[in-house]
């Protein structure tokens, strides 16, 4: 036998072949699909967008590296957290706040649970919820899109721990704020194309849907969740609109305004914090959709996607339990017995 003498036989467990997708591969693909959205954000909000996102990513990576198990940066999940957190912030956010937000996101949202895979809440959203509760004014100061590429959209370079200077002239209300407090709608086309106020990544609805479709096609995200969320928001919104068109925006307005699309495509689909079963995913999506509309319509805040997803995240262990699949050959037995 010509077995090379210097080489040891290797033994591994079956199966001995694996399909190609690995966890880092999936994560980096998601990062890739976020690139167009980052570019769009830069297009609308100029260099401020890049600054905020970069600060968030830097915070995420620094935390992962300092407190993580080691070597976990390469799996790409921290980058996603950073980019997504950045995309949910307004362009004028001081970068020190963005940095702190993602330190919290990774530290308290992920590593404290044991790192990738074990967290209960979506880290990026937890980071944003932290920022929203910590700096409620800064995070609801929405600069208008457009203007010169190089002008900052706010006091991005405010000194760490110090208040940003707020320039009222370049801020505007978001479509949802206008709707909630002044009962004014924004043209749908503007919403789809992203030429409205809002957080960096949420404005260009169509582009996000496109990126999401690509990811779903490659099997990296589960299409059921966004479909359930968008469907529920659309239907529930339309129903309310039918009741009182002056008070409530149309279903499409509901879907395309605010963070619903970004949240449903990129955040509710984070598999770590979403149910594992398909039935569970439908329930999860519908739950988020209902909560979004409830918070928007009856709550104190103009936007509720973040809270809706976090609340449903908390319910995921429950949903998973309730939607356990029935094993092959088990139902038959029960029927017979």
């Amino acid at each position, binding site marked *: 036998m010509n077995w090379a003498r210097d080489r040891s036989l290797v033994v591994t467990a079956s199966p001995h072949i694996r399909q190609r997708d690995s966890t880092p591969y999936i994560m980096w693909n998601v990062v890739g699909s976020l690139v167009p959205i980052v570019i769009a954000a830069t297009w609308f909000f100029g260099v401020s967008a890049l600054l905020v996102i970069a600060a968030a990513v830097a915070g995420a990576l620094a935390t992962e590296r300092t407190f993580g198990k080691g070597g976990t940066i390469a799996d790409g999940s921290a980058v996603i957290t950073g980019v997504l957190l950045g995309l949910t912030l307004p362009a004028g956010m001081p970068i020190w706040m963005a940095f702190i937000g993602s330190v919290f996101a990774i530290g308290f949202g992920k590593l404290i649970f044991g790192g990738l895979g074990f967290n*209960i809440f979506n880290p990026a959203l937890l980071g944003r*919820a932290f920022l929203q509760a910590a700096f409620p004014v800064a995070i609801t100061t929405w600069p208008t899109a457009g203007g010169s590429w190089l002008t900052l959209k706010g006091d991005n370079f405010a000194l760490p721990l110090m208040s940003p200077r707020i320039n009222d002239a370049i801020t505007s209300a978001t479509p949802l704020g206008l709707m909630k407090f002044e009962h004014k709608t924004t043209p749908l086309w503007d919403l789809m194309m992203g030429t409205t106020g809002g957080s960096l990544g949420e404005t260009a609805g169509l582009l996000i849907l496109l990126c999401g479709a690509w990811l779903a096609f490659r099997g990296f995200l589960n299409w059921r969740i966004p479909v359930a969320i968008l469907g529920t928001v659309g239907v529930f919104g339309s129903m309310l609109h039918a009741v009182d068109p002056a008070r409530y925006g149309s279903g499409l307005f509901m879907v395309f305004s605010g963070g619903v699309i970004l949240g449903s495509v990129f955040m509710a689909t984070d598999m770590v914090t979403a149910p594992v079963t398909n039935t569970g995913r439908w329930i999860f999506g519908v739950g988020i959709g209902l909560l979004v509309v409830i918070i928007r319509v009856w709550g*104190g805040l103009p936007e*509720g996607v973040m*809270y809706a997803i976090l*609340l449903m995240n908390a319910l995921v262990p429950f949903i998973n339990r309730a939607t356990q699949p029935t094993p092959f050959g088990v139902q038959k037995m029960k029927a017979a017995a």
Partner: protein
Amino acid sequence: MENLAWIFVSSALVNNFTLVLFLGLCAFLGITNSIATALRLGLANLFVLVLTAGSVSLLNYFILESAPFLRIIAFIVVIASLVQIVEMVIKKLSPVLFRELGIYLPLITTNCAILALAIFQTNRNYTFVEGQVFALGAGGGLILALTLMASIREKLQFADVPAIAKGTALVLIIAGSLSLAFMGFAGLMSGA
């Protein structure tokens, strides 16, 4: 009617006793290892809350009017006796129910949520009906918080939690996260 609805939503979600008002934390942090236990404890709590609200309404109306300074002591005594009576009655009437709920009843005496309910109810001059709705909402909120925490902790048994965070630190941080998420309910039904 709207007022009742607001009282309910406010006490269950917006001003959730556990996650927003920090009441009943001992049980929340201590007895949420399994969903079944948490649910039972929550139900026992709800039961005692409703009874307390009722008795406090009566107490306020008949006795404390004339001696408001005896409030705290009267409430705590009422709660303690109530819990004992309930325990005995359940034991007599339904041993099965007692086995399910009974062991949690004594814990409730030292649960500050109950006393707080009595005090809030009094400070806000709730009527009997409002008091009942308030108790239902508060109890519902407790059940919600307890079971959510329990289901999360069941899942966390699989997690590779770093040694420094094991135990109460992690539970507190989860509670903080839940509390953050519950901020989404702020202003719910305030009519703005």
